[in-house]
Every structure is written in structure tokens, then in C-alpha cells.
């Protein structure tokens, strides 16, 4: 006897998207979330009474307008406080640069302006292809069925249709590192620094690391539809809440405080889950949005899978280096070169590509960058409800930071906080005067808080050997986890992390298709 058709583990955005799709197709679906709220890494966090920061993710970038329409998220309460925000590169001397949809303004040469327009054109074009690939399960190369061959033929055709110049440029750059790509095309250190930051955000890479042209594409998937960066009203939690409402409207049962401890697999098939409180729930299949390493190692147990699967899971790379800095501010700080009206935009600290590379160095040796890159949001500018009247909150994504520095975080936390505020103060000299409360969330904190190995942005590193039909590992690339009755639907699956909903959506499509086949 089963309790429901499908159990989804985790009410992160992917778990909720997947659950909603399955319920809309008539399945009885229950979502089990260990935490007390929906959204996963897209939630709010109160750092002082009345001060709400995005607890982890802060920008809505890749959640496509199409998916918002499909899930009727606006009807379910999703509101954007700001859309198409400009990314502003900060500069201690005030010579900032602004980027938006292929246009640059600020201290920049005409050559760079033209070169950026050209790069944006190329990357957008490539990303239309990448988006096509991202919206469906990856095709298998070996033992491919007709459908795979058609998908590959389609890809080949579309590559050709890019025109021979763009195609050869793509093939030349696809495996390249972003540093070399930028060096070839641009003069401005700040512009190169900003694009370096985009490429390495959430990764364990510096701009000179291979793969980083690909990660730049992956992080800017929204360029495929001319999208940029948006801010959700009511904080990032607004997304989770809207998704949870949509799920419930579709008939999904949501359970919070329901931590899954293990998967029930008496024979060769996953039959249900056991919760931390001992409750057992049975289902036709279990879909996990928990990162694949945790799903296999902790929830299932490597002893339950065949050797190759165990080996592949043990070799998945999940090193991260992303932390958060949260400040409650008594008033708006002054950023050199910006006026108050610009503070609601996306502010980046990445003055040049070598700065970004140097920020990556310490993490290789188990340390944190005292001069990190920062991706800063002051969401209370666009949405005053996030802080008491006239006051503000600041949230920054900080890179690169070791998950477990020598000596542990307890001895270094205060120093890191102070270093990072000093770093910020180089661009906003009066910042310290405004700080009411401050905290940092290290990768270890994020791991514990959001139940994701390493606190990893993508659950599984986005590198060329861990994308498409190799994500998270070859036998599990089609959302079926190589174990009957178990599926994956989180950021660790194709196409990867960011708030895109694509892994969850593809997983639901696949599950429904596979049911039909059997």
C-alpha cells in the first residue's frame, strides 16, 4: 500500500516546481521539507528585529517569464519589486561602469563598448541554444535512442545555423577560460573584473580556470530571452511562497518539519522514505531535490547501489567557496561615484580580473579571501517593507571562502566579518557608521542551514565533466537515479543551479514519460 503516488523530498524551488507539474498531471504528490518554510535556498532571514535579508539567493535571474506564466505564479502571489536591474561595477575612485543587456555606460572606451555589444550578441545567441538544451533532458551520446539522435542532430543543425563565424568562435571559446577570452576582447580592467565575477560566481574556479567560459554562459542563461536581474517583492521568500501556493492549488500536500532520514529500499527498488521521527511513508516513487551526494550517501546509503554508481557518487566534485554577508543599516550608505537612486541596482566589487583571481587563491589553501569579490543587493531600496522605516538591509554574495578553514570558523568568524566590512568600506566609506547588526554565513553555515553539501550554489559543481549527460554522473543524468523508484530533481541535475526551475520541470516531464513507457 502506498500513501501517495509521489513523494518529493525538499520544498526548494525545484522540488515545488516538480511536485506541481506532477500533481497537475493527476498524481497524488506529497512534499516533505525538513525546514519550516518553502523555498530552499530562496528564503528570507531576519538578522535583527524588522530587518529581512535574503538568506541565501538574492536575485531572480533565470526563472523564465514563460515558467512564471505556466505556473501562474503571479496569481499565487509572486510580485517583482524591480526588474531588469543594472549591474554596476564599483570603483574606489568613483569611476563605475554599468552593464545592462549588452549596453555599457560609464568610464569606458568606444572600443570596449562595441566589444561588449558584440560579446553580448554572441553569448545571447549561444545561450538560446543552451536554453534549448536546458529545457529538456540531456541527450545520451552512447546507446542513444532515436530521440537522442534527433536531439543531437537538432543541436548540430542549430550550431550550423549560427553561421560559420559564430560557430567557429563558439567552438574556439567553449572550453576556454574567461580570463583569456576577456583579455582578447576588452581594455577596461573593471569591465573584465565584472565579467570574471559573473563567470566564477558559485564555483570553485578563478577566472583563469578552465571551464569558466562555460560557467559564464550558464550564469547568464537569461540573456537567451533578453532577461537580466530582478528582485522579488517581500524578499526572496516571495518566490517560495508563490510556488508553495501554486503547488497546493494543484493538489500537492506540503509537510514542513518533515526531515527525511533515509530511503526505504528493502529490495532492488526505492519504495518510500523514513522521517527523522520514525514515520514511514510509501510511494510509487521518490523524487529527491536534495543534492545528489547527500541523496546517495546519507539518504540511500552507498551500500544499496552498484559499485559504479557508488564510485561515481564518491567522485562528484562539490567544492564551493561562496559565503554571505548580511548587514542591518540605520540608513543608506554612500557609495563613491553613485547617487542614492542607483543603490537599488546590483553592485559588484570586482575591480579587475587579477583581483578576482587573487580572491580565488586563498580558498585553495583552506583560507578565505580578505579582499573578496562581492555581489551586493540593498533590497530595501526597491522594497522598503524589508526594513524598519528609513532603515536598510544589505546582502552580499562573497567569494571565495573556504568551507572549513584551518582552526575552524569559530576562531576566524569575527576577523572575516571585519575584513569584509573593511573591503566594503573601500567603496562605501561611511558604511560602518550605519551598521546596526551584521553577520556572515560561511559555506559551512549555508551547508547546515540549507542542508546542501558544501553549501554549494549548484549542489554539484558546474564543470564540463559534470554537465549535460554527465550531470550529476552519467547513469543518473536523466533524473532517474540509476536506482528504480528514485529520481533526482534538484540543482544537482541538468541543467544545474540558479533559481530556474528547469531541473524540477525536466524531472517531472521525464517521470511522466517514463511512466507512460512502462
Amino acid at each position, binding site marked *: 500500500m502506498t500513501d501517495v503516488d509521489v513523494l518529493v523530498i525538499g520544498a526548494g524551488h525545484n522540488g515545488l516546481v516538480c511536485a506541481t507539474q506532477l500533481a497537475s498531471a493527476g498524481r497524488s504528490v506529497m512534499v516533505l521539507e525538513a525546514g519550516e518554510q518553502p523555498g530552499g535556498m530562496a528564503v528570507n532571514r531576519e538578522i535583527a528585529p524588522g530587518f529581512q535579508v535574503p538568506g541565501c539567493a538574492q536575485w531572480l535571474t533565470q526563472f523564465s517569464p514563460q515558467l512564471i506564466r505556466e505556473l501562474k505564479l503571479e496569481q499565487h502571489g509572486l510580485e517583482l519589486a524591480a526588474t531588469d536591474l543594472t549591474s554596476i561595477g564599483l570603483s574606489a575612485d568613483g569611476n563605475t561602469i554599468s552593464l545592462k543587456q549588452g549596453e555599457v555606460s560609464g568610464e569606458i572606451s568606444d572600443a570596449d563598448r562595441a566589444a561588449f555589444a558584440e560579446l553580448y550578441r554572441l553569448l545571447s545567441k549561444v545561450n538560446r541554444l543552451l536554453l534549448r538544451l536546458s529545457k529538456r533532458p540531456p541527450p545520451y551520446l552512447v546507446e542513444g535512442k532515436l530521440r537522442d539522435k534527433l536531439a543531437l542532430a537538432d543541436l548540430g543543425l542549430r550550431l550550423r545555423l549560427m553561421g560559420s563565424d559564430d560557430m567557429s568562435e563558439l567552438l574556439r571559446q567553449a572550453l576556454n577560460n574567461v580570463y583569456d577570452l576577456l583579455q582578447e576582447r576588452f581594455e577596461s580592467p573593471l569591465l573584465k573584473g565584472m565579467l570574471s565575477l559573473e563567470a566564477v560566481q558559485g564555483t570553485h574556479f578563478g577566472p583563469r580556470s578552465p571551464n569558466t567560459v562555460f560557467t559564464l554562459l550558464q550564469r547568464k542563461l537569461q540573456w537567451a530571452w533578453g532577461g537580466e536581474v530582478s528582485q522579488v517583492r517581500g524578499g526572496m521568500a516571495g518566490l517560495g511562497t508563490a510556488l508553495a501556493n501554486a503547488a497546493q492549488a494543484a493538489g500537492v500536500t506540503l509537510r514542513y518539519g518533515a526531515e527525511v532520514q533515509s530511503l526505504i529500499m528493502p529490495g532492488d527498488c526505492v519504495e518510500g522514505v523514513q522521517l527523522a521521527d520514525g514515520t514511514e511513508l510509501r510511494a510509487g516513487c521518490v523524487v529527491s531535490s536534495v543534492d545528489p551526494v547527500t541523496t546517495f550517501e546519507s539518504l540511500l546509503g552507498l551500500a544499496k*547501489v552498484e*559499485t559504479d554508481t557508488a564510485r561515481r557518487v564518491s567522485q562528484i566534485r562539490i567544492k564551493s567557496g561562496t559565503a554571505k554577508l548580511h548587514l542591518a543599516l540605520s540608513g543608506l550608505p554612500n557609495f563613491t561615484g553613485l547617487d542614492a537612486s542607483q543603490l537599488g541596482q546590483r553592485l559588484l566589487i570586482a575591480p579587475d580580473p587579477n583581483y578576482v583571481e587573487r580572491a580565488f587563491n586563498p580558498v585553495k589553501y583552506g583560507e578565505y579571501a580578505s579582499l573578496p569579490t562581492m555581489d551586493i543587493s540593498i533590497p530595501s531600496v526597491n522594497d522598503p517593507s524589508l526594513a524598519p522605516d528609513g532603515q536598510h538591509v544589505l546582502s552580499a554574495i562573497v567569494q571565495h571562502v573556504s568551507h572549513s578553514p584551518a582552526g575552524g570558523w569559530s576562531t576566524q568568524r569575527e576577523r572575516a566579518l571585519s575584513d569584509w566590512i573593511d573591503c566594503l568600506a573601500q567603496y562605501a566609506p561611511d558604511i560602518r557608521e550605519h551598521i546596526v547588526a551584521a553577520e556572515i554565513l560561511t559555506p559551512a553555515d549555508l551547508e547546515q542551514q540549507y542542508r546542501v553539501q558544501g553549501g554549494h550554489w549548484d549542489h554539484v559543481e558546474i564543470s564540463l565533466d559534470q554537465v549535460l549527460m554527465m550531470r550529476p554522473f552519467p547513469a543518473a543524468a536523466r533524473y532517474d537515479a540509476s536506482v528504480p523508484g528514485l529520481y533526482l530533481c534538484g540543482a544537482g541535475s541538468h541543467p544545474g543551479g540558479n533559481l530556474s526551475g528547469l531541473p524540477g520541470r525536466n524531472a517531472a516531464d521525464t517521470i511522466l514519460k517514463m511512466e507512460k513507457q512502462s
Partner: protein
Amino acid sequence: MNPHQDEPIYLPTAFHSRQQQHNLLHAWGGWNGYLKPEAYTDIELEYFAIRSTTAVFDLSPMNKYRVTGPDAEAFLNRVLTRDVAKIKNGRVGYCIWCDDAGQVMDDGTLFHLGDNDYRLCSYTRAYEWLYWSSLGFDVAIEDETGTVAALAVQGPTSCTVLTAMGVTGLESLKPFGILEVSFQGQTLTVSRTGFTGDLGYELWIDTSAGEALWDALFAAGEPYLIKAIGTEALEIARIEAGFLQAGVDFVPAETAVRRGCTRSPFELGLGWLVDFDKPRFNGRKALLAERDAGSRYRYVMLDVDGNKPAHHSFILQHGKVVGTVTSAAWCPTAKTNLAFAQLELPADASLTGLVAEIYYERELRWNKVLAPCVAIDRAPFDPPRRRQTPAPAL
């Protein structure tokens, strides 16, 4: 000058100094990185020692892995296709293991030496596979290849010889049983196992006691015409007894380069070693699918007309090639011309009308015979003494 010129390419085993004395032919070869005698004096005499007196074969180069720890049985159940729980303490089991695609990686023997204590003997180097397979299990795996010396003592007088050497209680040891005795202060493990299909034993001891064991064995065996034998003689005996040889009769899955060159247990006639009642083991999913869909290849033992061994022959049926021979020998005791063949025929296909296309050479003249073959179910050599307990003694 090459600074390495005096270094041996192959390592000596614990018995090397003694083997040198016996190896009048100086016919050395390599086996798993060790020096092994291919023959000592005369292949036929060595073969007949197996079948009529006592033959001694050094199997030290075989890979030996000690598996210990609370999850030892569960771990081995992931790796091996048969149910390890059925191999009781003090018993040995023949076993195979597959990769996740259900292709045979190797065959070997599993010794259940004690509680949570096993030794797995394999043809291929298996440490890496065992290591990866141990993820999720609380076990320790130790490669004992270089620290445990082993001798196969095989033939109708083997029990008598070992008893004369001082091994007590041997007569009552059942086939696939294990006995531990003390030998000059060391533990000597004796198992009633072998690769000859005859009455026989295998001795396992720390390499430091290797030479002393050899000396004691040959001293006790002299009156019984004990004889050291090499791999050539053993090859005839194992074919006569119907035993497959990894690397000869199938390509171990991990060493295969080409797709489709490996074989499943069903395709090697080893389906009886696959226990689907076990909920999980490597290759289970693939093997279930193959069981339902049918196998591509089929293993058969053939009694070939005439006395020309069908080495590497094509097997024809109604004039069409249906397969090839992997092992062949004229078996002197069974007086059978035996061949193992891989046929690309479904399991239920008729096996009538099989013909071996045999080529042989006489003084540079090549001849061809088309020898009719009959598929047989059992190996032609299977003497009662192989199974008798108490073991026959002189």
C-alpha cells in the same frame, strides 16, 4: 650501462629456490608479475602425476584478497553474484563477479576463514574494484598476494602424502572444506580445493615458511612419486575437468577494450552462480534484463571426433559458422577430444550437426579436418575420489 639490467622483470615466489632445483627445462614464464614454471621436466609426465600420484603446483601468484570487518558478508554480497551467506564458516565457494552491466569480471574462490573473515582469490588484479565496491561498507581489504604462499597438491595420493607430512584430520575434510593445522609454528591452512577435478588440496601459508613447507612436502611425498608440475600440465587437467579459465575462455570485463567482447554469466554457462533472490548485487539489473530477453552467446562443452585438438577452431552448423573454440585439448585420462566453445545461438537452439573446422600441421604441411562434435553436459573426467569423504588413502 642499464642500471636495471640485473633486476628481474618477474618476482620470485616463496618457492623459487626449490622450483629452480626441479626445473630441468628452465621453462619459465610470467604470471601476474611472478616467475612461474611452465613445465619442469616433461608435460605428459607431469600431467600423469596429477592423475595417478601427487602433483604440486605453485599458485602463489594468484591474487589473494583478505576481507575482514563487520560488513564483510554484506560487502561480498554486493560484489559476488551468488549468496555469500550460504558459504558457511570453514567452507570455500566458487564464485564470479560482474560489473554493473552484468558482464563477468572474473571468477575465483571465496574462502570463509572465520567470523567476518574471508579470502577472495582471483585471476585479475581486483584491488581497485574491491576498493570502490567497499564504499558504504565497514570492511578492510588487504592484498595478500605477496604475503601468502600457496601450493596445490593434487592427485589420488595427495591425501596420503599430506597425512604423511603430518597434517592430521585430513581424511574427514569434505570437498570445499577448510582445515587449519600448525606447521613448524606457523598456521597452515589446507583447503580441499583445486583446479584439476581430482582429489586434491591447496595449502596456504605465510611466505616466510614457503621453503620449509616445500621441503617437508617433497620429503613426505617422495615414496609416493610426488612431482612438481607447471602450467602446461595443469592446463590439460583443467580442461579435462571442465573448468573455465579467465582470460582464455572469457575476457575479464575490465580488461576488454571492444564492446561486445565480454560475456555474462549466462553466456558462460554460469547462470547457476547468479542468485536473484539477493535484492542487490553488481549487475543484477542488467542480468535480470538479459534473463528475460535472452542471451546472445552460449557456452558449450564439445566432444570432438578424432584426436586432433580443436584449438581456435570455428564451429559450424549446417555449413554456417556459429561460434569458435576458446579451449581445447586431447584429454588422456578421459580419452576425449574436448573443446569449450562460444556459440552465437539462442539458449533453446538445437545443438545437432555441430562440426569443428580444425587445422593442424605436419612437417609444414597444413591439413584441415571437419570433425563432428557432440555437445556434452558434464566434463568427461569426474572420478568418485574427487568427492569421497573420507578421502581415499593408500
